[in-house]
């Protein structure tokens, strides 16, 4: 199994480790999943997300290339600003979802999913023109600090004042540290990119603050689920289009207008009775006919009820539709709910 540069640090913290996308990753630490989740919502949590891929494309025509590889427009995106989008294949299916940061007119940094790295890199390279240069930052780590106290921790521990950096904005220093104000939790927070050799020192420095606790992948998943964010390979994949995935907002007008109208849509589902429904649980209409299955699901520590995502035919895909979710042969009443399930508190949203 592959390891991140923080592998030893996780072991030292007594993390419960498990495989994710070919990496031996921390699933949870001493606090446990539930308390880690709550800690991020109230304080600041530290995540090792170094398994994700960091790549750069630059050179004349890069913006045009990205507008071919994704359904988005990067024309109006400001320099040192980030946009969430998807890579799509020739059939319009989603190859991966990613963060794209514009660092110059034809200079872009991408953060791609660990499990998609190889295919994304091959896909991008196969579309490169003679004028574009591609770099994979294989020896750079990525550390996320998420939670309402993140900005104060960055200031007090690292001496970095990020108060003027907007949501989806980038701050960097001497090309040895790149800090983006974004994340996968719905909280204010940052993703910090540093060379591998600096990762452990940064990790330990941030952890030395009482407001910061290490958070594993299990809580990362329950946090993102409360926000209704997609997990690639579960909620989106090559068989789903951006419109089906309810990601029409990342599409530019011309792409959207030419895309086929979806017959199913990704929706949020909440159980209205006790129980926990997880990925794979069947979604039934009130007549008991199967209309879909959960692509993710679990207990929301914030709402204290089971939440999930599923693709359902568009005639059901509106808020309030009543359904059943089958959990081990038991039908639990459920309804379609608006996502995010929990109000985001990213910078500027509160």
């Amino acid at each position: 199994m592959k390891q991140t540069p923080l592998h030893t640090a996780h072991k030292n913290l007594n993390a419960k480790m498990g495989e994710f996308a070919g990496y031996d990753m921390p699933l949870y630490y001493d606090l446990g999943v539930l308390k880690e989740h709550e800690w991020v919502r109230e304080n600041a949590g530290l995540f090792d997300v170094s398994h994700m891929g960091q790549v750069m494309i630059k050179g004349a025509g890069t913006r045009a290339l990205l507008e071919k590889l994704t359904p988005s427009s990067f024309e109006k995106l400001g320099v040192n600003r980030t946009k969430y989008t998807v890579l799509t294949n020739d059939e319009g299916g989603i190859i991966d979802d990613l963060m794209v940061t514009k660092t110059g007119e034809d200079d872009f940094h991408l953060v791609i999913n660990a499990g998609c790295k190889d295919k994304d890199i091959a896909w991008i390279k196969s579309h490169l023109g003679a004028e574009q240069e591609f770099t994979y930052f294989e020896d750079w780590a990525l550390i996320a600090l998420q939670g309402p106290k993140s900005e104060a921790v960055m200031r007090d521990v690292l001496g970095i004042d990020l108060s003027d950096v907007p949501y989806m904005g980038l701050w960097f220093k001497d090309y040895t540290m790149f800090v983006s104000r974004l994340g996968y939790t719905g909280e204010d927070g940052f993703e910090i990119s540093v060379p591998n050799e600096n990762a452990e020192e940064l990790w330990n420095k941030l952890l030395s603050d009482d407001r910061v606790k290490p958070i594993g992948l299990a809580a990362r998943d329950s946090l993102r689920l409360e926000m209704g964010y997609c997990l690639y390979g579960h909620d989106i994949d090559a068989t789903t289009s951006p419109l089906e995935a309810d990601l029409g907002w990342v599409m530019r007008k011309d792409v959207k207008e030419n895309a086929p109208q979806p017959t199913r849509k990704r929706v949020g589902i909440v159980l209205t009775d006790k129980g926990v429904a997880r990925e794979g649980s069947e979604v039934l209409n009130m007549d008991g006919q199967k209309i879909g299955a959960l692509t993710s699901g679990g207990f929301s520590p914030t709402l204290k009820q089971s939440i999930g995502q599923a693709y359902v035919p568009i005639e059901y895909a509106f808020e309030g539709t009543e359904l059943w979710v089958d959990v081990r042969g038991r039908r639990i009443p459920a309804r379609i709910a608006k996502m995010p399930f929990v109000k985001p508190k990213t910078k500027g949203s509160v």
Partner: protein
Amino acid sequence: MTVKFSKDHEWIKLEGRDVAVVGITDYAQHALGDLVFIELPKVGATYNKGAHFAVVESVKTAAEVYTPVTGEVVAVNNVLENDFDLLKSDTEGWIAKFRITNTDELNGLMDEAAYKGYLKTVE
């Protein structure tokens, strides 16, 4: 009657002649983490040895609870539905009571010393 243990981390204790009380061990609870839901059996349901009769769910996973003996459910600890911490109690943390048909089934289970030894092999 002493407490016996299964390889699936249930504990079982005979109460009287033919009623057995079943719960899950500290090890199982620790491995699961904070519980968020428990699915209990119905009184009157019968289960064969090794069948799952309850489900405990934590944020990270759902785990089936198996009965170490064959029997009919005669009592269910409904208090657990609203108080998962109760599971930790040695006296009140039981999940269900079974009227068992074959007390010999208990002989195949581990005593406390054997279970402690077993835990060392699974860790």
